[in-house]
């Protein structure tokens, strides 16, 4: 059943899973005018998913409504969906699925089925945030082109599978290897369109945290999130997390397709402290790599009315590129004074970290709530957007105005 409706702001409506419930737009925490007119959000369903914020039908790009981001672990059936190309298998037969491993830097070529991978390699798990590089692109001013995401092109899950490193060591990695490239079962509608193939630096591929996952939150990975196996690159943006993984290529030369050389680029040196990707860098730009520190308030929305003397719960989630969250600070007076928020359970340095701060507005008028997260390295969020042509790394501190009456 398909349910489609225009969003109206309604944070705090309890019946989350109900098709008939009113669900707020992810944009409701910002001024709605910040999203382009045509990006007016509608809710719609994909098989196996609760109604999500539909950005595009084909290829499917569906965003997680903010209500589902209150829990630091994102439900599988509410986890966002992002594809570049529309040649997507309707269904993948796990028994017939094979993973090819090879390339000019590999000691040998090999092929594995799902049972073989499970049997031969140690089972490991990690909690990690998968965030689309372009999350919050719709809030860029001036607007940039692309999928005009709100705040929900991200999710956090417990991923279970094997270490990519163990697989690579099994076939052997020659010392002149520079990158490992990944392809998935999805592809373009036309042969003339470049297939979505991505690579990561060899040291990142050999990192103990980089996995090939088969399970997400204890269940098989949902089709739209990469069934039956997907690459997990904790800390790095979702573009590298290849879905429906079919091929692992050990390369002695950098991959230079459209998706590496042209797309997913940030201006050179503009974002301080992000991880490098030496074999892909040019004078002008570099690939997007790890996520910048960020936070999202999920309990209140811009323009919400509260009563004087009533306790207001400012809570949400914070995350970064894998240093881990050290502190979250909350201001309720537009940034003049800041309080340390209480942090939620630590699920690991790659996970969402919950936070909460309670306050009681004492004066009528406007109360401006702001939140800024700090990671273990001391990085924090920006107050002014760092403009870049593709609309990446939006981690501007939110300003949520409450009307106190």
């Amino acid at each position, binding site marked *: 059943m*398909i349910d*489609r409706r225009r969003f109206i702001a309604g944070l705090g409506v309890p019946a989350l899973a109900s098709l008939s419930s009113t669900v707020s737009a992810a944009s409701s925490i910002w001024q709605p005018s910040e999203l*382009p*007119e*045509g*990006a007016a959000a509608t809710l*719609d369903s994909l098989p196996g998913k609760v109604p999500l914020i*539909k*950005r*595009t*039908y*084909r*290829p*499917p790009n569906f965003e997680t409504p903010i209500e589902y981001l209150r829990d630091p672990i994102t439900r599988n059936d509410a986890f966002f969906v992002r594809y570049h*190309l*529309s*040649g997507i298998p*309707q269904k993948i037969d796990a028994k017939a699925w094979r993973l090819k491993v090879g390339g000019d830097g590999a000691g040998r070529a090999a092929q594995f089925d799902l049972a073989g991978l499970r049997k031969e390699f140690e089972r490991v798990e990690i909690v990690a945030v998968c965030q689309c590089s372009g999350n919050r692109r719709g809030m860029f001013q*001036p*607007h940039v*082109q*692309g*999928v*005009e995401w709100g705040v929900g092109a991200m999710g956090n899950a417990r991923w279970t599978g094997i270490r990519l490193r163990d697989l690579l060591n099994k076939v052997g990695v020659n010392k002149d290897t520079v990158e490992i490239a990944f392809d998935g079962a999805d592809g*373009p*509608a*036309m*042969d*003339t*369109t*470049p297939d979505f193939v991505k690579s990561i630096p060899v040291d990142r591929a050999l990192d103990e945290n980089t996995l090939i996952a088969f399970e997400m939150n204890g269940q098989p990975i949902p089709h739209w999130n990469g069934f039956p196996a997907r690459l997990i690159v904790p800390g790095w943006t979702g573009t590298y997390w290849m879905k429906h993984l079919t091929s692992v290529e050990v390369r002695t030369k950098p991959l230079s397709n*459209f998706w590496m050389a*042209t797309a997913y680029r940030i201006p050179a040196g503009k974002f301080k402290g992000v991880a490098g990707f030496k074999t892909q860098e040019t004078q002008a730009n570099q690939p997007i790599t790890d996520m910048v520190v960020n936070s999202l308030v999920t309990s209140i929305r811009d323009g919400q009315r509260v009563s004087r003397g009533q306790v207001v719960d400012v809570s949400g989630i914070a995350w970064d590129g894998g240093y881990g969250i050290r502190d979250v600070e909350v201001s309720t007076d537009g940034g003049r004074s800041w309080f340390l928020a209480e942090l939620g359970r630590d699920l690991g340095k790659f996970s969402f970290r919950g936070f909460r701060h309670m306050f009681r507005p004492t004066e009528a008028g406007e109360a401006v709530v702001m939140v800024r997260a700090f990671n273990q390295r001391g990085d924090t969020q920006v107050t002014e957007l760092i403009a870049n042509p593709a609309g990446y790394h939006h981690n501007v501190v939110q300003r949520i105005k409450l009307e106190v009456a």
Partner: protein
Amino acid sequence: MKRALAVALVAAASVAAMAGEEKVRLKDGPGLDKVQQNCVACHSLDYIPLNSPFLDQKGWEATVTKMNKAYGAPIKPEDVSVIAEYLAKNYGKR
């Protein structure tokens, strides 16, 4: 309108329409037929209002050219400006 969609989808046999996309309706106007013939083979038409209205004629032209050059969409050179004009007029910056 429906016929154009069907023809384009047959041309790209590997791609099935996604449930829901039939609800996307673009504004009537000169050039809409070219938009439908060329764009729906690879993506649903909601990509157009999604990127409206902040692109002007030049911006839409660049987008159509990108679809052709970077994504390999077989758009005839004479259709590029017809498509861009339709998009700028109906979904362009005002």
